[in-house]
């Protein structure tokens, strides 16, 4: 009997302790002296995309620190309100709604997780909250649907079009495409097919793999049978490794062009023992990278951002995962230009390219939004191709 009682006591104690652990955070208020609250979908464990999520958080924190150093947003201190949802849409919604019920945040930022964006976009729209979204979805790029939402990442269209000069330069005619089954990967696959065809290339095959699968031999065999000159592929995490291993296994010497998510995968961009750099699997691989991912001593804004980020955390991935930094700077620039922290005024200011290009952003030098499109119209040379190399602090050729 004693044992049983002790067990119950332990359980009761555990239950009593639990509520104490989650201290909810209060939002600010609208008074000029009160902080400007930016809510961000965060957490520390999102399974395979944990590093993306955490890097995005680090980037946002660095952005906040940078803005606050320069006097905050129109004199108001910026406060980052982290919602511990681990990129789970239901939990992100719970946290957002709870926060709105208490006090509306001034802006919302999604650093990673497009289904979080899809889930919360309508709520943000309904409550007229500025939404800076690094996990693009179609709805948040369309001001007719969501006038206060902005996509930050290069659109899939830009990513895909980035390949065309590469095909041209190397004389590739027949293209094979291999992509995963996440929302982004599917769009990538579809757009790759239509854009390449539209540009006059022969798309020999488009294959999809399940991102939880452990072996891609089947898809690779199919592609090989189609005999492309080059294979364009999308993958993040372990699947990137499975694809490369599968191709090496078949003894297939086809040139490989990985997309920006491949270049964000530490497995591909780290020296052994952590990664595969230097292994024969990577012999034919070239990576599509955002220009800021290649270290450039003269890129002041980028270097400043990297310094800010590395001083408070690690960048596990490439600069592509650091859009959160730019998000904060963009909001600050918009508020300054509009001389207001009203969401409509800030959104209007963001549509002015002169405002965004002067914001001091790190990942892309500018975010050309317009009144018709809230997807940045990035130039064709936004991306370049690089040999796989060690990415340190989010950059290739980093001086460390």
């Amino acid at each position, binding site marked *: 009997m004693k044992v049983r009682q002790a067990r119950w006591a332990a359980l009761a104690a555990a239950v009593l302790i639990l509520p104490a652990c989650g201290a909810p955070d209060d939002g600010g208020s609208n008074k000029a002296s009160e902080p400007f609250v930016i809510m961000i979908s965060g957490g520390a464990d999102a399974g395979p995309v944990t590093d993306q999520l955490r890097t995005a958080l680090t980037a946002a924190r660095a952005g906040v620190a940078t803005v606050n150093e320069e006097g905050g947003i129109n004199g108001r201190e910026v406060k980052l309100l982290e919602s511990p949802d681990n990129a789970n849409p239901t939990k992100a919604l719970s946290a957002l709604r709870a926060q709105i019920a208490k006090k509306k945040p001034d802006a919302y930022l999604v650093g990673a997780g497009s289904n979080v964006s899809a889930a919360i976009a309508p709520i943000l729209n309904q409550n007229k909250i500025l939404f800076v979204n690094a996990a693009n979805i179609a709805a948040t790029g369309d001001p007719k649907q969501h006038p206060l939402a902005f996509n930050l990442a290069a659109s899939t269209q830009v990513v895909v079009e980035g390949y065309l000069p590469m095909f041209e330069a190397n004389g590739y005619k027949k293209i094979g495409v291999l992509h995963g089954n996440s929302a982004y990967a599917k769009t990538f696959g579809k757009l790759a097919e239509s854009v390449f065809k539209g540009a006059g290339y022969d798309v020999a095959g488009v294959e999809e793999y399940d991102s939880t699968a452990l072996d891609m031999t*089947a*898809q690779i065999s199919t592609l090989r049978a189609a005999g492309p000159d080059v294979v364009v592929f999308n993958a993040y995490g372990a699947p990137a490794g499975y694809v490369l291993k599968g191709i090496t296994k078949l003894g297939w010497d086809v040139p490989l062009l990985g997309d920006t998510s491949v270049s964000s995968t530490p*497995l591909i961009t780290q020296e052994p023992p952590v990664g595969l750099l230097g292994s024969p699997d990577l012999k034919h691989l070239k990576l599509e990278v955002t220009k800021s991912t290649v270290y450039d001593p003269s890129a002041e804004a980028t270097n400043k951002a990297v310094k800010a980020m590395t001083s408070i955390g690690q960048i596990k991935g490439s600069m592509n995962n650091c859009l959160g930094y730019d998000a904060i700077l963009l909001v600050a620039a918009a508020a300054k230009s509009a001389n207001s922290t009203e969401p409509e005024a800030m959104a209007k200011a963001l549509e002015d390219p002169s405002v965004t290009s002067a914001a001091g952003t790190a990942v892309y030098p500018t975010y050309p939004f317009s009144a018709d499109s809230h997807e940045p119209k990035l130039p064709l040379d936004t991306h370049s191709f690089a040999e796989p190399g060690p990415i340190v602090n989010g950059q290739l050729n980093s001086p460390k």
Partner: protein
Amino acid sequence: MTLIYAGLSLGAVYALVAIGYNIVFVASRSFNFAQAQLMTIGAFVAYTGHVTFGLPAIAVVLLAMIAVMLIASIEERIAVRPVADHQTQLITTLGFGTMLTGIAQLVWGSQPLDVPFVGAKGAITLLGGRLYTFELGLIVLAIVLVVVIHLYNRRMMSGLALVAMSQDDEAALLRGINVRKLAFAAFAVTGLLAGLMGFFIGPKTFAVATLGSALALKGFVALAIGGFGSFYGGLAGGFAVGLVEAHAARYLGSEFSNLSVFLILILVLMIRPTGLFGQLQERTV
């Protein structure tokens, strides 16, 4: 042929999980839902041994086996022994597995880690198909393990005791078999094997924290197809699942690979409810 090898090597991974389930099932009529996670830990330990400590292969294998055996023993003590009924064991072992995943993420991070393999890591051509040496190693390991376990069960006293126990706890007790000790031994042995398996699986799948949940259910399906309690069945089931997955992905598309496995599972079970190699009982009356 290459596709068949791919299916077989993947199937071998499932079969290895199934073997782990089976040992505990035969010994105690319950399931260890943390089995796949134990293997994942094995792969991580192999990585640490190889890469961080730079140990020779044989030492790495021993290290992985002993480390995972210890973890499995702890599991038996805290998650299995204190719980009497099998239904609740399902939850406690699941909980233990979840903890292992969490701990692996904390220790080794959430990115995949490349586990080296003994000797050459290159691909070879065999009977007109291409496969990696470690894939061949996986297939051979699965087959050898099953044969060894089967022979052991046939020949050795404690093997017989295991089987006796699964038939009837009380009868085993009457024959002077220490049921508890044996159940503990079964966990220790699965741990030992999981460490060994991790060493072989790592090079194929990478060591990644989420590997456990990807393997857990497929291992079960392999077992269900082959028949609960049958080691040959688990092997056949694993190969079947791997082959079906690979071929469905090749010829139907990736979203049909799980569906095809499900269809095969249903089909096999509708024809033989006890699985391919399961013992067929006359009507339960």
